[in-house]
């Protein structure tokens, strides 16, 4: 469109800074979205790639959650006539201890048969022996690594590498190097193959396997084979294609993506208002141009199209830049995401490269352009309405009437009522999210009206502060509510999000602190892995008595937790001696009677479930649940619902004896240790290390360390509050600068007159500053108020879709109070530039047309 080149481009060139600021809104929104999305995807694809590569020709996998199962299951699977090949697998990650190398994914297999499923594609070194499976099997220290890993670490055939195992540090020998194709590219190349029987020792697994990978006989349909295997096994086993592991992971990550998506949605919304604001300004500034075009015979539609196309182009540029920025942010973020997933869910992953798929690119562009065009719509309509006669008269500015104010208010009220009604009406997703969206829209639609009311309320205050400047500032706001409402709306949204996230972190801290105080009260924790959530390594049960015999230890509790499928989603089953728990870390249940709960659960006649699980899955006290286990269905009633923050997806607490019986597994993840009164933490810790030195891999964490660990995770989880606050500040500065620029432009004559009749420069400046601060105050007032509503919704989302955390509604007063000076300062800072330009004739001229 030629007009774009002739009319828009010169303007953009002239106001390059502002034009960039305009697109910044879109850049921000798209970048946040792209960053979150690509980072999540990279982690997901990392897993899927690994799953895929590791799967090889595997058609189905037999698992029992992540609990593992006894070896004899393999023979049962192999005996199924439909099965062609079935091989056992143990998959575990282990910290290499090599700087910058991170985790190594260990795939432990039985080399005798595994090649029929997986091609190891061995790089043949000079030493022929490396390709000798016999040596590999005969020597339990054998390790096969990828070429990439070998190269990075200067390893070659027969190199030694020391890895921490359950038997202390052990030296491994590289006996095979895989080419970086196929299997070798799994887990970012950080893959090692080990003999499965050696791995049982290394990871303390006893005689169990994690998984059986299998291929079916030719001509056997997947479902048919699946059904046959399921028939041969008890219900605790899952038989599914390898790709479903990716899906499971996805469902875990989804919890996390929801909050990310809400953040990027807000960022886009905010971007929309920045765009709206900038376009409103552009229309004001270019009113004369528009008048000329209209006089020369441009149709209204041509003018409208011009601005819409401008919006579209801004959106396109913004989203393109946003994509690039988002990729950068994603790259920075992906490590965080991976770390957090490891910490929270115990999923160790090697994220894939951050990439922008054509689909995502298209989506980002469409979203960016659409947002921008929507935002530009109102200004474009205003531009089309510009009256050429008035536009062409120098010094006279058309006051664009606010139009359907009443209609808008009415719609807003209806929406507000509807959203309130939906709150009572339904708890299912559709009415809930509809209600949320309606609430946001209502708030946005009411913004101009409320902003006007607030400005009127502020007038006497400002006037009292500074009779002349205050009045002028307030009047400026009152006379042109449109000028400010975009900025105010953006500010409101940003602040409401800060409040909501702040409220979440406040409540999480409160809840978690309480839980940590009562439930996590042992003095020491002995774990097999430095990350409490990773369950790769396990202790044998025999270690319990050994620990108990250490001087200074009064009691120990043995904890074994596994993630198992339950009603279509994963849950964490935590087994512990319930009796000991009652004695040492007794907690009042949310539902149920404490005595009965502990007694029945301790006798193995019931399970305790966490409150978040009950919420997420709609479980009630007294309900009987069927938990699939390798030993058959565990059919037990819920005897109590407790607050437990062990897992985002929900926890089922059962007695250790029940676990041992059902899972045929008496290994231990964590020992909880209570010291004798007066025993020194450090001394006992040292004694534990002494006792197991060199023979056991273990980590001893003090209560304080565990508490710090959990709080750190919580911090990561709620760290978005700060990011959102940064967004709010940027929005404030951007919006206020824009608004003031227009305001000064609109009131150029007024300000000129003021100066002409003897107004001091200082007075003019103060007028501008006061206007800025007033905008910020209005934005704050609305934002903090809408924040209260938003917090409710976000808490509700957290409860229903993000981990079922039932958090108390606590308005984050301290955060709210902290925001006030921040935002006022931001407003003041953003007013400095415009204030100067208002008093400097030349600058004003530069802002003005011709």
């Amino acid at each position: 469109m030629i007009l774009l080149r002739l009319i828009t481009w010169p303007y953009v060139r002239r106001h390059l800074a502002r034009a960039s600021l305009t697109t910044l809104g879109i850049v921000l929104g798209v970048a946040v979205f792209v960053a979150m999305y690509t980072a999540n995807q990279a982690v997901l694809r990392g897993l899927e790639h690994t799953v895929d590569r590791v799967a090889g020709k595997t058609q189905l996998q037999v698992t029992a959650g992540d609990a593992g199962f006894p070896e004899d299951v393999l023979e049962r699977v192999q005996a199924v006539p439909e099965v062609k090949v079935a091989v056992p697998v143990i998959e575990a990650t282990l910290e290499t201890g090599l700087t910058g190398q991170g985790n190594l994914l260990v795939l432990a297999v039985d080399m005798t048969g595994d090649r029929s499923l997986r091609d190891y594609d061995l790089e043949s070194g000079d030493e022929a022996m490396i390709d000798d499976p016999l040596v590999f099997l005969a020597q339990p220290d054998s390790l096969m690594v990828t070429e990439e890993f070998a190269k990075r670490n200067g390893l070659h055939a027969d190199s030694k590498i020391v890895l921490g195992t359950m038997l202390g540090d052990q030296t491994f020998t590289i006996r095979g190097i895989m080419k970086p194709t196929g299997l070798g590219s799994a887990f970012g190349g950080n893959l090692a193959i080990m003999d499965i029987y050696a791995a049982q020792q290394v990871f303390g697994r006893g005689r169990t396997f994690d998984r059986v990978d299998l291929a079916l006989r030719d001509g056997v349909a997947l479902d048919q084979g699946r059904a046959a295997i399921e028939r041969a096994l008890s219900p605790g086993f899952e038989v599914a294609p390898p790709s479903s592991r990716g899906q499971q992971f996805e469902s875990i990550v989804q919890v996390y993506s929801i909050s990310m998506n809400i953040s990027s949605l807000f960022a886009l919304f905010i971007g929309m208002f920045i765009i709206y604001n900038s376009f409103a300004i552009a229309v004001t500034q270019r009113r004369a141009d528009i008048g000329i075009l209209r006089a020369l015979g441009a149709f209204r539609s041509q003018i409208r199209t011009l601005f819409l196309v401008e919006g579209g182009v801004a959106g396109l540029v913004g989203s393109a830049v946003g994509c690039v920025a988002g990729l950068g942010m994603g790259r920075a973020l992906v490590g965080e995401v991976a770390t957090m997933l490891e910490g929270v869910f115990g999923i160790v992953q090697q994220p894939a490269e951050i990439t922008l798929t054509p689909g995502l690119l298209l989506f980002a562009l469409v979203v960016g352009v659409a947002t921008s065009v929507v935002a530009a719509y109102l200004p474009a309509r205003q531009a089309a309405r510009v009256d050429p006669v008035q536009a062409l008269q120098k010094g006279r500015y058309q006051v664009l009437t606010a139009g359907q104010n009443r209609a808008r208010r009415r719609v807003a009220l209806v929406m507000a009522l509807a959203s309130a009604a939906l709150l009572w009406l339904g708890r299912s997703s559709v009415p809930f999210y509809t209600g949320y969206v309606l609430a946001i829209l209502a708030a946005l639609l009411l913004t101009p009206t409320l902003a006007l009311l607030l400005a009127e309320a502020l007038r006497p205050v400002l006037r009292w502060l500074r009779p002349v400047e205050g009045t002028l500032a307030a009047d400026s706001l009152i006379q042109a509510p449109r000028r400010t409402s975009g900025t105010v709306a953006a500010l409101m949204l940003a602040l409401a999000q800060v409040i909501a996230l702040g409220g979440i972190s406040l409540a999480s801290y409160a809840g978690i602190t309480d839980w940590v105080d009562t439930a996590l009260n042992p003095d020491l924790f002995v774990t097999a892995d430095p990350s409490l959530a990773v369950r790769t390594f396990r202790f044998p049960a025999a270690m319990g008595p050994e620990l108990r015999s250490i001087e200074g230890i009064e009691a120990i509790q043995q904890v074994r937790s596994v993630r198992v499928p339950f009603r279509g989603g994963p849950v964490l089953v935590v087994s512990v001696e319930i009796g000991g728990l009652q004695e040492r870390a007794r907690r009042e249940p949310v539902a149920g009677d404490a005595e009965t709960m502990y007694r029945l659960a301790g006798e193995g006649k019931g399970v305790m479930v966490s409150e978040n699980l009950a919420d997420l899955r709609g479980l009630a006290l007294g309900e009987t649940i069927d938990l699939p286990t390798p030993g058959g269905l565990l059919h037990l009633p819920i005897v109590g619902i407790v607050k437990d923050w062990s897992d985002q997806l929900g926890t089922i607490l059962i007695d250790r004896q029940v676990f041992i019986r059902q899972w045929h597994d008496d290994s231990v993840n964590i020992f909880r240790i209570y010291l004798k009164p007066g025993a020194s933490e450090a001394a006992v810790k040292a004694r534990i290390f002494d006792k197991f030195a060199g023979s056991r891999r273990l980590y001893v964490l003090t209560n304080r360390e565990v508490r710090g660990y959990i709080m750190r995770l919580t911090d990561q989880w709620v760290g978005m509050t700060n990011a959102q606050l940064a967004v709010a500040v940027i929005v404030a500065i951007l919006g206020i600068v824009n608004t003031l620029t227009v305001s000064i432009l609109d009131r150029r004559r007024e300000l000129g007159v003021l100066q002409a009749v003897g107004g001091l420069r200082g007075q003019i400046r103060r007028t501008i500053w006061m206007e800025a601060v007033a905008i910020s105050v209005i934005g704050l007032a609305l934002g903090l108020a809408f924040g209260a509503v938003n917090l409710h919704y976000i808490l509700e989302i957290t409860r229903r879709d993000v981990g079922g955390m039932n958090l108390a509604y606590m308005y984050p007063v301290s955060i709210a109070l902290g925001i006030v000076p921040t935002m006022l300062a931001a407003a003041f800072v953003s007013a400095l530039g415009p204030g100067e330009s208002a008093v400097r004739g030349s600058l004003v001229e530069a802002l003005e047309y011709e």
Partner: protein
Amino acid sequence: MTDSAMVELRGVTKRFDGKRQVTALHGVDLVVPRGEMVSIVGPSGSGKSTLLNLIGGLDRPSAGEVVIDGQALAGLTDDGLTRVRRDKIGFIFQFFNLLPTLTCLENVALPLHLRGWSRRRTLERARELLDLVQLGHRLEHRPDELSGGERQRVAIARALSVYPPLLLADEPTGNLDSATGADILALVRDLHERLGATVVVVTHDPTVAESCARTITLRDGLIVGDERR
């Protein structure tokens, strides 16, 4: 209405609604025949510019009828009005109203672009017009590189872009020194004669008024004089 009339106003009244109602024109009747060159004079606030805006279809009367080239404006939509402006009227403003960021050529080409002309045809016509106003050597200059008189020539060239039958000029010499003003006036006269366009000029300048065959005097929104030489 007569076929020969280019502009016909019947009982045209224009009021501005504000805190205080202002009546700019009181039932003005006026006929400008095709091919005539008319000047409108009168003191500030007499309604000259309002009259011109109504004739130019930039504004609508509160009462009465405006007919341009046989077409009554009253019934037209905004787009219809725009179409009349686009196809039948050329505007020349006191402050030129050129877009400062565009070259002379681009400024002149602008109305043609709005009409959706092809790029080649547009540029051909724009060059032709600039030649016509003797600015053929200034095609790529921007307005701020030109003198006042040259800018007004560019504006005239732009007004002529589609050779409209009606040319409206609002104080075309108001912003120019008298010598330049005379040049511009000569150019307008010349175009009037050569192209046979109907010209309506609003002016303060008695020399401008006198150079027109007909002068209409406005005072307080009423025609108080209509003199033909």
